[in-house]
């Protein structure tokens, strides 16, 4: 028993492969992003690796980033939010409607719309925590109601005429050459990161996602934290919808619906990044970049539109696979 040094241990056989697998699960997404950038740069040295293309990709990715960042808040507290796409579409219609038809000042209109988005999140949260409805069902139901409200408000007709240039400028303008969207996106992501990683609320958010029973018995109000997470998800979704309307110069009934899939793919890719199957803001950031650059590459090489769907669906499945692989390895 006195002999506790480990030098006499026999060589360990399958340790190498396990470490390799673990590394693949943790750094796979980042390495994948790097390899993808490298391949695209080599194959298309003129079009791909340029400042203007990268700026363009980031600009395009900004909206997906914000909605995925919000969704990250929902999944960290352990709930899925399927209403984000519909929520964002409503926000686009509502913000243009308020500005064009009700002549509400742009700034105020945006605040109202983001508040509505957050409110939709709160409704999701109340249904999930108080009525104990599974979040998939709750947010699918609420999301469908939101679609209905959207059609009721707009009658399905896009609001195009009379959208002021100032409103379009929010998304299209640049600050010292950097598109506004990128700046807004970075600000949102940094704030979310600080919230989750560096605040007491963030600790509570992570605890609720990790083990709600233990969080509750540590004195954390689990229901409130879940509602808060879903409210943030809703607020970010509506901000995305506002920026999309600004970029399109119109409020269109189902403009943002497709962000749902992108956001989920990014969030799950992110959970396979650096941490073993845990959702986190920086991971989501990487996840969105992978999807955005992937799309960009497909475009540059003239891949047909349908390939984007195949790419995105495959990424989603791959991401969830990587994420659960990470979790399995973390447990062993």
């Amino acid at each position, binding site marked *: 028993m006195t002999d506790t040094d480990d030098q006499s241990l026999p060589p360990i056989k399958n340790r190498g492969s396990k470490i390799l697998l673990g590394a693949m699960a943790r750094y796979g997404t980042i390495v994948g992003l790097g390899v993808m950038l490298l391949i695209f740069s080599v194959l298309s040295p003129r079009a791909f690796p340029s400042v203007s293309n990268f700026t363009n990709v980031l600009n395009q990715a900004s909206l997906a980033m914000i909605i995925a960042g919000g969704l990250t808040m929902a999944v960290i507290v352990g709930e899925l939010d399927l209403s984000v796409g519909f929520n964002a579409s409503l926000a686009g219609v509502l913000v243009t409607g308020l500005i064009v038809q009700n002549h509400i000042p742009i700034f105020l209109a945006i605040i109202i719309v983001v508040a509505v988005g957050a409110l939709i999140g709160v409704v999701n949260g109340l249904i999930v925590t108080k009525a104990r409805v599974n979040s998939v069902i709750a947010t699918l139901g609420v999301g469908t109601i939101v679609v209905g409200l959207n059609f009721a408000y707009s009658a399905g007709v896009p609001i195009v005429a009379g959208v002021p240039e100032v409103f379009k400028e929010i998304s299209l303008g640049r600050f010292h050459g950097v598109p506004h969207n990128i700046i807004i996106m970075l600000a949102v992501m940094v704030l979310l990161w600080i919230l989750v990683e560096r605040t007491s609320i*963030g*600790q509570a958010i992570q605890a609720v996602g990790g083990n709600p029973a233990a969080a509750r018995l540590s004195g954390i109000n689990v229901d409130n934290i879940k509602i808060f997470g879903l409210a943030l998800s809703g607020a970010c979704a509506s901000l995305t919808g506002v920026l999309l309307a600004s970029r399109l110069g119109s409020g269109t009934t189902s403009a943002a619906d497709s962000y749902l899939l992108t956001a989920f793919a990014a969030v799950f890719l992110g959970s396979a990044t650096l941490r073993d199957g845990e959702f986190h803001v920086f991971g989501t950031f990487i996840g969105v970049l992978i999807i955005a650059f992937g799309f960009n590459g497909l475009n540059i090489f003239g891949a047909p539109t349908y390939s984007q769907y195949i790419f995105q669906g495959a990424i989603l499945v791959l991401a969830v696979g990587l994420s659960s692989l990470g979790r399995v390895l973390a447990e062993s």
Partner: protein
Amino acid sequence: MSDHSNISGARSAPPFLTAKSIFKSFGGVHALKGVGLDIQPGEVHGLVGANGAGKSTLIRILAGLERPDSGQLMLDGKDIVVENAQKATELGLSFIHQELALVPSMTILENIMLGSKKESRMGMVNWPAIARKVEPIAKRVGLTQPLSTNCSKLSTADNWLVSICRALVHESRLIVMDEPTASLSAAEAERLFAIIRDLSASGVAVLYVSHRLDEILDLCDSVTVFRDGYLVTNFDKASLTRDILVEAIVGGAVESQSIEPQDFSSAEVVLAVQNLSRYPRVRGISFELHKGEVLGLGGLVGAGRSELARLIFGADKKDGGKMMLNGQQYRPKNPSAAVAAGIGFVPEERRTEGLILTKSLAFNVGLANLSQLQLSKFLPLTNQRARSKLAHDTIAALQIKAQGIDAPVGRLSGGNQQKVVIGRWLARSPDILILDEPTRGVDVGARGEIHRLVRQLAADGMSVLVISSEPDELPDLCDRVLIMSEGRIVRELAGDQISRNAIVEASYAQDLAKTA
């Protein structure tokens, strides 16, 4: 002691299962450093050791859930490789874990046959024929419920019986039982022991893993002791005493630490509970908890003690009654209200209710102290320095063995995990600390440390409510003991009255009265 491979010898029959020089490491941590084990056919073999000694790892290797880094496994003298759980079953090895692998919504019969080949007729499972075969087995282990009963309706003890039936259906030659009595009452445990002896007599070997040394001494034909991943020694029943066993587990004699109970009846009342109820488990409970007092709640599993604790902590809603905390009306809406009012709670199930296993020690300790760790009252940013200081202080104060404050708590041993759950409350210095089974699944050494800590906290003025199903534990800790039975307080023991026998006797008084 340095001779790991020597397994004491003069046995007539060759062992039926042998494990030799097993090494296993996880990441950089060496869990097993050359352990071994010999099991004779039909013997009850005890496996003991502190948490983290490597018992579970060896069992997982036998079960095919882990592969050893090196070493040899032999069955009937032939080398075997257990690649997966299915292979273990084929080899005749069955495993019953603390968390039973039963599907609650399925019937006894379906659970027993889970994963085994089922007799079928015209492509459909022939349940009546299977039932006829299983019935004698169920009878043999004393399972009295009809086989069509859902497992969700069974007690923990009956669920154990179902698991044993499953092992017998597979014609297992070895059944490994991990902490079988942890959630059984004494009567249920006795029933299980009878079944184990019966199995043993009919040639089925049992590898019995437990922290409860009295059971080991009583039941086992031979005992293997692990410590820190090494094989310490192997005992025959004849050469075994409790002291020898404890010394082998801990690596030194443990001082006994019975206490002198004090009378707090004239001390300030911190918590007064009046007629508190939540039916059917808690029925009109009244008691007072005094400042600096350690009050024990004894009784059988299912007596309503944990439910009472949850009511006090605001985790469940009461049906009636009232509570006064420091002279004020106290109605906790939820646990966070209870925490704010100055109560800390260490739940019974530390892995599922106490800890977030994937998160770090610092994270888990910080959970109950989030507002204290903020940079300022109005800015919810966490003070990272204060957070790591809190974690380091907790490690030092409770002598937690951990690889730094950022290692996931899931990797710590049971005793150290329990210290983390307790430690999270200490920084808040709550007026009342409720401990539900504070040393369940905790090794002898850590148990002593936790007991000392509780006494120290009480000496510093904290009031402590301790729930324990081990009659040995409360006399080591408590100034006063309340015995609960069927949701009511049936006896109060104070001063010299507190003893193991008095607690056991009072716990069963109700049962005895009923059968009489």
